[in-house]
């Protein structure tokens, strides 16, 4: 009878060990995911508010003010890009680049931030930008509306940290994102903040088991912060053209390492 009890106990132990691990981890994620949703909502509120001021300046023909508001307005979008990108129609309307379109800058489907950026910096004028300004404000308002009641897919949230870094590494570190205004460092700040927020929210769930991993991640974020801080100017950053080649390499190395490390975050949280 002793053996029977042993078997029963063993079976129970195996069952609870196997399941408890996956389940506890998963339910623990509810807090971080909902805190992230609150973060996203706040960023979207700010994006809509800032976009009103930015597009208002464009429509008022105030080139200097519109230029000054362009980069700070984008930062909220950049911080939550993994979620904003869930809606491809809006992402393309709001944030596509000229080379995403057949006729590049001349393509009528080229709209959003970069279309306005093109007008403001290349032509130093707000001429012909009114309809783009209206559309941008409509689109960011629509984005907020769609996300308000959207339960965020946990794997998109957790995977978002790596996604942000991969995107910086693949298509931003080159300076191609804000090619007319060279305000790329502002965007980077938003991207890094958004990725770091995700790490911060899930940190308590892995702090004990993943001490080394977190230290490596923190070191790279610190390296990035230290590098970016050299280029700070006022509320933002100097032109991307002023970034030294050595610092660009430091940033690129840290971003690549972060993209690689953070891509394991989903598995660490049982989301793969």
């Amino acid at each position, binding site marked *: 009878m002793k053996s029977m009890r042993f078997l029963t106990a063993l079976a129970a132990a195996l069952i609870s060990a196997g399941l408890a691990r996956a389940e506890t981890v998963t339910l623990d994620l509810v807090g971080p*995911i909902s805190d992230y949703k609150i973060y996203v909502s706040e960023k979207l509120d700010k994006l809509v508010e800032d976009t009103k001021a930015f597009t208002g300046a464009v429509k008022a023909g105030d080139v200097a003010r519109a230029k000054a508001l362009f980069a700070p307005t984008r930062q909220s979008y950049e911080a939550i890009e993994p979620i904003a990108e869930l809606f491809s129609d809006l992402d393309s309307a709001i944030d596509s680049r000229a080379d995403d379109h057949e006729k590049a800058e001349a393509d009528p489907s080229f709209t959003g931030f970069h279309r306005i950026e093109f007008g403001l910096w290349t032509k130093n004028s707000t001429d012909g930008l009114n309809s783009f300004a209206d559309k941008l404000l409509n689109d960011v308002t629509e984005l907020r509306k769609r996300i308000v009641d959207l339960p965020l897919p946990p794997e998109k949230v957790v995977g978002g940290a790596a996604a942000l870094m991969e995107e910086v590494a693949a298509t931003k570190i080159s300076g191609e994102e804000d090619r007319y205004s060279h305000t790329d460092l502002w965007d980077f700040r938003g991207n890094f903040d958004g990725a770091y927020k995700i790490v911060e929210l899930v940190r308590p769930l892995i702090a004990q088991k993943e001490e080394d991993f977190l230290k490596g991640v923190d070191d790279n974020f610190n390296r990035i912060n230290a590098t970016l801080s050299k280029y700070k100017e006022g509320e933002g950053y100097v032109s991307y053209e002023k970034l030294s080649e050595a610092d660009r390499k430091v940033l690129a190395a840290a971003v690549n390492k972060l993209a690689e490390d953070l891509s394991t975050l989903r598995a660490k949280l049982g989301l793969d």
Partner: protein
Amino acid sequence: MPMRATFRNAPAPGGPSRLMPLAVVGSALLAVASGVLFYYASRTAIRSPAGPVYRVTVREKSCDPNSLVAPAGRVAFEIYNASNRTLEWEILDGVMVVEERENIAPGFRSALTARLRPGRYEITCGLLSNPRGSLVVEASAESEAERQKPPLKAFIGPLAEYRVYLVQQSSTLIKEAARLAAAIRAGDIDEARLRYVATRLPYRRMDIVAGRFSDLKNRIDPVADYLEKREDDPAFSGFHRIERALFAKRSLDGLQPVADALAADVAALGARIRALRLSPGDICSSVERQARLFAESQIVKGESPYARNELVEFEASLQGMGKALDLLSPVLQGLAAPALALVQERRSVAASGLESLKRAGGYPAYDEVGSPTRDKLAGDFRAFAEAVAKLGVLLGPE
């Protein structure tokens, strides 16, 4: 199989001939073991649908018995009120209300079924000031089987979204409670009455959860009926004390500290809600619990005796329950479509029952709502609670 390995590793001084009988004994033991496991499993399965009923008699100062031991899973209780006061009976996990029955009149019995996880609980015994009894819930075959439910990953998004809703409602509650306190400080009784009703709405929208923190609930929302000295009891604090002053006594005298304490308590509630971890099963049992409270007590006798704004509060509470159910429903659709459909159908019956009472200027005062209407409404909420209970069984406590 682990047993075979053990035998093989055991020292065999007598050579191979000694192993044979041991192996035979080993297989025999395995056969007996599986037989016993089967017997145990079938015995529990037979027991579980009906199961024993735990009877508790509540006397003036204590429960009898005052300590209970029950197996985990669905546990049935029958509460007998042997005291001379109407009482509520609760099962508490720390400060959290797991299950409760309100409005048990003297000499009456009330049945309650709770899905309990293994652990130590307390039971309340009559007046809030009476010492509590204990309830120990032990692991059972049923509770172990519950752990084998499908993974919860699909629920994380909806649960996170519901937590966002709770956090938003509690922020609104904190703001509204501050405005109520400000109106009282300013000596503006008309404004304070408006603010009172407005403050109740976010509280009601999250009452399935707020009602579970028993210590805060007893400060924020105690009803005079359950206090020894009723309205004169020093523990008569929070909303209903303010309600009585504003709507019955029509006086702001001495109300400032009460309003300030309420503001502090709802802030504490906000912090608790942020730290709360809810499972889909928790949400179902919370909705069921609240809908039953409505059916058995609040709809029948009313809950706001001075302001008589019950109907708008019931509506807000039902909105909160609906929010939780709507968020879970895409996942539940795949797991329990028929049970979910019944829940949604009965929920809309309850909602339209309330809606039908609306007049041009909004809901009438609750004292204008007669017994037949109240009974009908209570029936709608009872049917809703029962449908949610069936859904909850499919989800389990996790």
